[in-house]
């Protein structure tokens, strides 16, 4: 088991290094190939060539990519300074870059936004996991019934609905027409729990609908496959109650693919539920990223992307561990 965990840790670290190298490379190579100097993106359009050169020197953009990458990694571990003669800017570890537009290091900016994204992702995932898996199981057990068919058509419609449409629609109906929920700004859980929940509620539901549809389809398909297997027949032949056969024996198989996509999905979401946050005006990590893109705040964009990748890699790692718990065969492999 320890061997298994260690191997997974190594894989995750390697994966993270590759992703960071690729992301970093793309960010610094692509603008060059397209003929834009990254330093120009930092200083604005009206800057003189001398300003551009000074900025490039301060940020180390005049160095080769591998030197820049080395400094970036060192920054994460030990912090770094941005130097240009008299003005010196310190960025403490873990330094994911320094946002000169906000005049703040990127990492605290990310930490500020993280609770919003976590609130959104956790709330939505609880709804979609329970709803989606339950709907899938019921559908599979009542295969071919009207309930099954209508549930699956609903699920297909669900995966076809973009969140930027359902989100707007939900806001139009429940906030502006019916006034059931407040509009306005996001509030912290600690300041006003009810305000927090009512601001997030529509986001939770619309996001959950989208995912629940996928989970219901997957659960149904896996469940149908599983119940036709020999070991289920054996379990039934032993005279186990149907509830035990489905709930204990079949569910174990059904959960494996669910855990896989759940890990990927939650990892992606924690890295910024960009669309949902944009639609509902939630100041999370995704919102930070899209704002940074609009203001051309490159260090923030890079920081958020790497941070997002980190979440996915960590989520995958957790999934691998959960596998070993759910499916004992994995431990031995």
């Amino acid at each position: 088991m320890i061997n298994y965990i260690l191997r997974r840790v190594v894989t995750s670290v390697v994966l993270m290094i590759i992703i960071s190298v690729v992301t970093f490379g793309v960010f610094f190579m692509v603008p060059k190939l397209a003929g834009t100097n990254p330093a120009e993106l930092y200083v604005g359009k009206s800057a003189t060539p001398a300003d551009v050169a000074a900025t490039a020197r301060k940020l180390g953009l005049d160095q080769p990519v591998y030197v820049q990458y080395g400094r970036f990694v060192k920054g994460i571990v030990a912090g770094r300074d941005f130097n240009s003669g008299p003005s010196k800017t310190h960025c403490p570890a873990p330094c994911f870059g320094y946002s000169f537009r906000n005049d703040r290091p990127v990492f605290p900016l990310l930490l500020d936004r993280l609770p919003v994204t976590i609130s959104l992702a956790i709330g939505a995932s609880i709804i979609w996991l329970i709803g989606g898996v339950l709907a899938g199981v019921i559908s599979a057990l009542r295969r071919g019934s009207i309930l099954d068919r209508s549930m699956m058509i609903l699920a297909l419609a669900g995966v076809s609905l973009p969140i930027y449409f359902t989100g707007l629609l939900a806001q139009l109906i429940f906030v502006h027409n019916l006034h059931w929920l407040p509009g306005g700004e996001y509030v912290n859980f600690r300041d006003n729990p009810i305000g927090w929940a009512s601001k997030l509620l529509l986001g939770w539901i619309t996001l959950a609908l989208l995912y629940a549809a996928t989970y219901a389809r997957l659960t149904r398909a896996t469940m149908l496959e599983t119940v036709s297997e020999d070991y289920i027949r054996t379990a039934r032949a032993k005279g186990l109650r149907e509830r035990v056969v489905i709930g204990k024996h079949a569910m174990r198989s059904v959960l494996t693919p669910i855990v896989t996509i759940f890990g990927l999905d939650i990892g992606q979401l924690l890295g910024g539920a960009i669309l949902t946050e944009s639609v509902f005006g939630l100041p999370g990590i995704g919102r930070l990223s899209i704002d940074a893109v609009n203001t051309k705040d490159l260090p923030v964009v890079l920081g958020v992307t790497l941070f997002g990748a980190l979440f996915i890699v960590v989520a995958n790692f957790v999934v691998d561990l959960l596998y070993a718990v759910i499916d004992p065969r994995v431990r031995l492999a």
Partner: protein
Amino acid sequence: MTLGPVTSSTDVATPAGEETPTIADGKKIEGRSLGRIAWMRLKRDKLAMAGGGFIIFLILVAILAPLINKVLGHPVNEYHQDKIDPNLGGIPPVGTWGGISKDFLLGVQPVTGRDLFSQIIYGAQTSLLIALLATLLAVVIGIVVGVTAGYYGGWVDSLFSRFMDLILAFPLILFAIALISVLPPTKGFRIAVMVLIIGGFSWPYIGRIVRGQALSLREREFVEAARSVGAGSFRIIFRELLPNLAAPILVYSTLIIPSNILFEAALSFLGVGVPPPTPSWGRLLSDAVDYYEYDPMYMLIPGLAIFVTVLAFNLFGDGLRDALDPKSNR
């Protein structure tokens, strides 16, 4: 997932002079090809056929957009400010339904009064163009990588499989908007970049399926037979493997089109899609964010356009899978 090995035409040809077998009432037993059986199954699936019909309709609309627009619409960027209600701050259109009239079939945009109908049909062009090109790219890369990994196996397989895992582990939308934002926003260039990004991130879905199938097919007797008569890798891949992969490739290509359409719309919604004034459904929706309280139709119409299109592709793809795969769970 496959239809089983495709046999060459000589295998099934009736020897000359032999009577086609008949059953008692004299009716000929019809030999049905696998494709034909699949087609008959598909035809029975009304939802899938409706989806397919809508897809054909939409493709025609996209191709004939300039012609249709001449008859039923107005030039895309022509302002019609007489259609905007000056009493309501010059924002919402005149009339209750977003300015829908026999002159403006889907109403007009708030503030500018541009014809929404023409925006929608030209938006279909943008959406389908990008999604289909991206899918084509994904299919080509997916087949090449998948077949190579599956056929050669060993370290080639591990390498390509890890690579596919890596791509699936990228924070997709974040990466896409970040990348697009550092590139110049000219129209043709942006379309190319979007196709590259959408296709470049969706090919592993095809690649994984193809790899899995190729891995099991290469162990089958007909491949072994081909190898034993001296067929080279090239011939085995193109004449033996690929024909058998056609069905899953077709199904999964159909199923990634809708997600590619959603991806394109999402990028446009976030403001990193095709630059204005080229119409795009996603951008219409993001414009509608500012006005939906006064003019809900302006949000509903592009939203429904995306929804119905994606649903049509999903229904058709699902039906196609069921038709081509008798084992599917239905």
